């Protein structure tokens, strides 16, 4: 699940590198912000802030933290790409696509039922 703590290999995690502090063995960020993915923490820090993320992670069970960090990282990335709507823009787009698909499907089923009511089997 989580990658091994980078502090165990004497290399600070991306968070501690960015924050210019010593990466302690029990660093809460280390399992989720490896040093080879610096942009991940940069984004999360910019949108949420390190202390907010620390508080959030500390309120979660360790088994939930990786998913939480990944979803925060996704939200942060979306917010930086679209500072006005962030993830909400994605949700709106998907809802619009869903409505369009539902209409198209309803149309297609209506067409199909016309053929079926004429007793056409559709087999060659």
């Amino acid at each position, binding site marked *: 699940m989580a990658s091994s703590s980078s502090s165990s290999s004497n290399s600070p995690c991306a968070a501690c590198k960015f924050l210019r502090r010593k990466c302690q063995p029990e660093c809460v960020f280390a399992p989720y912000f490896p040093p080879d993915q610096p942009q991940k923490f940069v984004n999360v820090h910019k949108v949420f802030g390190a202390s907010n993320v620390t508080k959030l992670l500390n309120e979660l069970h360790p088994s939930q933290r990786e998913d*939480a960090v990944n979803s925060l990282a*996704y939200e942060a990335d979306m*917010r930086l790409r679209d500072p006005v*709507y962030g993830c909400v823009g994605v949700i709106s787009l998907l809802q619009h696509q869903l409505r369009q698909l539902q209409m198209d499907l309803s149309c297609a089923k209506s067409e199909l039922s016309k053929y079926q009511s004429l007793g056409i089997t559709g087999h060659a």
Partner: protein
Amino acid sequence: MASSSSYNSPCAACKLLRRKCMPGCIFAPYFPPEEPQKFVNVHKIFGASNVTKLLNELLPNQREDAVNSLAYEAEARVRDPVYGCVGAITFLQRQVQRLQKELDAANADLIRYACNDIPTGLPQVTGASTVQPTLTPRNRLAEFNRRVGNEGGGFYQLPGALPYSFPWNDASSGDMNDGGGEGGM
């Protein structure tokens, strides 16, 4: 939206932050005092200073939408600390994929009906003047495509929908763990 500071009532942000709500308060237009929870959530998840920086980088006419989307995300994260609004995105992506498959199957059936040579039940007259069907199979397909909006002849395409994947991780999959979530906004 009038600034609450003009009524001598601090906005929800300044009330929570226990500071004087100045006339130019950046939060005041968007965090009225009668909606305290909106700022509580936003402050908890994003922090007041991050929100200030973000709003300062936007045009004034963009700020209301930005605050509302931040408030939505913050509330979603408070309700679901693990997945936040990303849970809703995953749910919606799966719904879209499911409906796309159903639509593809229905289209395939329609193409079979449109292209096969089984008579449509129209009256046939023997002799020199044979009644032609209203639509040939090829025209039937074109007519169907026109009606369902697939003018190009292709099936419904997802126009650049953002899958849940990370730009820094080439090996990431397009799907998330089973993290449920509401689909509505």
